[in-house]
């Protein structure tokens, strides 16, 4: 039996650049039994909202959903750290039979009295969607009782995949940012920075670039943000968006409702970072801003380019496989690897969108395997057939890469060092070098290969 494509239904989700169909199927439900690497709607919603530092994140459901998302992500805070707790109504069989609304009300009561939060998110989980608890009603009553905002997040696991969770989070955010009056909408000359979760301080790094350029950042969504900041989101005159997979819908709604335009940026790699900074400067700045931006880029490049060049000498000619969550990251990684002389030979995402796959297809070199919603068997097959030297992925993919004797780059939400901006580009190059050129491979690969 052929190992990987024993599953016919998966054919449409996989293509080879230049040899097969240019468009692959994406944004579809995972096929049962395929061992998809995707998580659920709730996960998607929690990813987007969790970095809001002074909010209570209350999971209305059984304990697992809360246990598996407790403080597992590396979003940093400069203020409160309430978000690093995981609260759950810990539903039991009795609650499933008789309904969980009373328990939810009691849970909110206890949390409101104990922590005095301004904001509570209540996440719906699979069973809540089935037993039909009225989250809206409970939230509304609690909001009134305590004079705080209690916002339901409609994230029942079965209503779609992780992307549906991004949308659920964006819907919740959109309710939150509604201004009391519209007089100030779009009035300050500042930008919102969407889709950065301040992993290892990444949002702080990018904000500092903007400060040096003379561009005012209004609010970062959602990395290191707070309730009070969210209330002034609509004052900005431009939204720039990095993680488009999670924030595209939100940016679109803001444009539609408040007339605030948005543009896509990426701060992964030297090329995309410089390009993004320049485009932001051109969009919101004057000649002075543009001059300062060029100075910043030149200053940073002077330091980082030689370092990257040094790593490139050691890494050129290697082949990379990429399997990440969203499309923007995949697109940037193709370019970022080229800066290191590395070609991407396999690339896929969990939740990439059609237009992102089109860009990937344009950027990828001939013969690159492109795949959506891959599984371990496919990753194993294509990493092997395409002779990749390393894989970029998340926690679940790491042991597979290692078992196959491949180097590995952690590009996930629990990373402990920044990968954004110039310092991130250096960190990335260093991480590639660290894993590709480690002496351990000498001992595990036949005929051992090292950089020497």
């Amino acid at each position, binding site marked *: *039996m052929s*190992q990987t494509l*024993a*599953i016919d239904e998966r054919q449409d989700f996989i293509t080879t650049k230049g040899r097969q169909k240019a468009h692959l199927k994406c944004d579809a*439900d*995972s*096929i*049962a*039994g*395929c*061992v998809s690497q*995707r*998580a*659920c*709607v709730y*996960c998607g919603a929690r990813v987007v909202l969790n970095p809001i530092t002074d909010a209570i994140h209350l999971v209305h*459901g*059984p*304990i*697992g*959903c*809360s*246990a*598996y998302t*407790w*403080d597992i992500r590396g979003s940093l805070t400069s203020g409160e750290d309430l978000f690093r*707790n*995981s*609260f*759950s*109504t*810990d539903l*039991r*069989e009795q*609650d*499933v039979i008789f309904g969980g609304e009373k328990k939810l009300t*009691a*849970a909110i009561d*206890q*949390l409101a009295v104990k922590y005095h939060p301004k904001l509570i998110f209540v996440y719906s*989980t*699979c*069973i809540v*969607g089935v037993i039909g608890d009225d989250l809206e009603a409970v939230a509304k009553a609690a909001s009134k009782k305590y004079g705080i905002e209690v916002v339901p997040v409609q994230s029942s*696991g*079965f*209503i*779609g995949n992780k992307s549906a969770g991004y949308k659920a989070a964006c819907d919740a955010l959109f309710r939150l940012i509604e201004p009391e009056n519209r007089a100030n909408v779009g009035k300050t000359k500042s930008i919102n920075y969407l889709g950065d979760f301040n992993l290892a301080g990444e949002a702080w790094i990018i904000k500092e670039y903007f400060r040096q350029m003379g561009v005012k950042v209004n609010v970062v969504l959602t990395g290191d943000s707070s309730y009070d900041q969210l209330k002034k989101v609509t004052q900005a005159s431009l939204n720039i968006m990095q993680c488009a997979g999670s924030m595209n819908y939100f940016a679109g709604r803001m444009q539609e409702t408040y007339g605030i335009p948005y543009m896509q940026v990426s701060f992964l790699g030297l090329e995309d970072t410089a390009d993004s900074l320049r485009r932001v400067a051109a969009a919101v700045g004057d000649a002075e801003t543009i001059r300062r931006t060029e100075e910043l880029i030149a200053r940073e490049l002077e330091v980082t380019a030689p370092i990257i060049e040094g790593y490139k000498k050691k890494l050129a000619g290697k082949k990379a496989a990429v399997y990440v969550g969203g499309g923007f990251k995949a697109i940037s990684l193709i370019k970022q690897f080229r800066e290191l002389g590395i070609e991407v030979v396999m690339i896929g995402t969990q939740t990439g969108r059609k237009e992102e796959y089109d860009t990937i297809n344009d950027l990828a070199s001939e013969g690159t395997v492109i795949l959506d919603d891959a599984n*371990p*068997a496919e990753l*194993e097959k294509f990493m092997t057939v395409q002779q990749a030297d390393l894989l970029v992925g998340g*926690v*679940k993919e*790491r*042991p*597979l890469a*290692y*078992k*196959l004797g491949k180097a590995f780059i952690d590009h996930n939400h629990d990373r402990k060092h920044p990968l954004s901006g110039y310092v991130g580009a250096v960190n990335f190059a260093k991480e590639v070098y660290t894993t590709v050129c480690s002496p351990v491979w000498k001992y595990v690969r*036949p005929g051992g290969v090292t950089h020497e």
Partner: protein
Amino acid sequence: MSEKSSFRDVNENPCHMCMPMGGILPVKGIEGGMVVIHGSQGCSTYMRRYISEHFSEPIDVGSSSLNEKGTVYGGEKNLKQALDNIRRVYNPQLIGILTTCLAETIGEDIDRITEEYLIERQIHDLAIVPVSTPGYGGTQAEGYFLALREIVAHLAEPAPKHNKINVFVPNMSPADIRELKRMLEVTGVEYTLCPDFSDTLDRPYLETYSKMAPGGTRIDDIKAMTGAVATIEIGVTVEEKYSPGQFLKEKFGVPLYTLPMPIGVKNCDALFEAVSKISGKKVPEAILSERGRLLDAMVDSHKYNFAGNSVIFGEPELVYAVSQLCMENGVYPKVIATGGPGGKLRELLQGVVAECPEPVEVLLESDFCEIREKSRLRNVNIAIGHSEGRYLTEHENIPLVRIGFPIHDRVGGHRLLSVGYTGTTLFLDRITNTLLERKLETYRTDMYNLYYKEENDLAAEEDEVKHDELFLS
């Protein structure tokens, strides 16, 4: 032993996980075993992430990926498709189907679906074991034993009597399982240990990778468990309805010895006594030497250990054994906690902590918010349990000795050896050294702050005294 009285409506920072999570591990310990989680996609992914990080191994788990349609009209089609695809790619010998909150709430009849599936596809050489593990039905500890019991109940068939001992183990590290096997082999008894994930979840690096990890308990050996001379079940806290040993006893009359995890002198002795009683074999000299070395270590470290005020948390079976170890060594427990109801834990602990000089808080259905509060109030200075206890270190500066599942913030959790006389010695050293490390880190500053007085301060104090004296005279 004092009891927690109030039950809260909100869990703040969980100390347990859900039932299907626990069910995955025993299936992974069966040769050719594969899992399908019947529910929405996220469940399997979250569980894979945690197991994968703990063991540093690829963990492939199928999902029926229930969507809205499946939830409304029933997930039968999804489940059957999942079984088809898992068979195609992994060619397993046994598939465990574990349900989730979602599947149970919409009332999926997995027994019927499984039966139908086997007939429709005309399958005769594959065991499919449906297990009802709603996430709200219990913790990972109950899920683990229920899945194990269902696997045994499904496979067991009448077999001729033989001399092997059945050994059922709880969630312990692959290193612990290997140590247990070594001890049985040194003693010269034959056994069937189940589930055996000592190889499947701790694979050696090999030149070629296979999707199904080699190793695991052989299915034929499980079938023949009914003819065994006896069963040793390491699971004193496990309720009868979850116990595979109880099943074999009731259905096939296999004598059952229920024992605690062999951590601590008393618990290790209990294991060897049982093995000797069943097999008639004496405890080998080599093992007695190991016992002697443990006693030697206990004496060497007893004063350091007496400085320990411990909080012990995690799965009930481990918590029970670690509490015994701490009592034996004077690392007296102040707080003992588990996230679920704990099975028989509470009643069993009464005997264990009876001689504790101070009352012990036993917290069932607890969470880390409560564990933290009680630990602070009771001046706990050492925490023993899984990685989530890092919360106690961060907030209360209590050092954590990692043991159990999951260990995701350090490497090698699955390589930790803690059972048997030798394993206990190593584990006790980890506890003692954590206390020593803390002492050596802080004693200079502590003593300075407590006893040193600046000359100027002293002079000032003397002046004050003189002033007072003058005033008085």
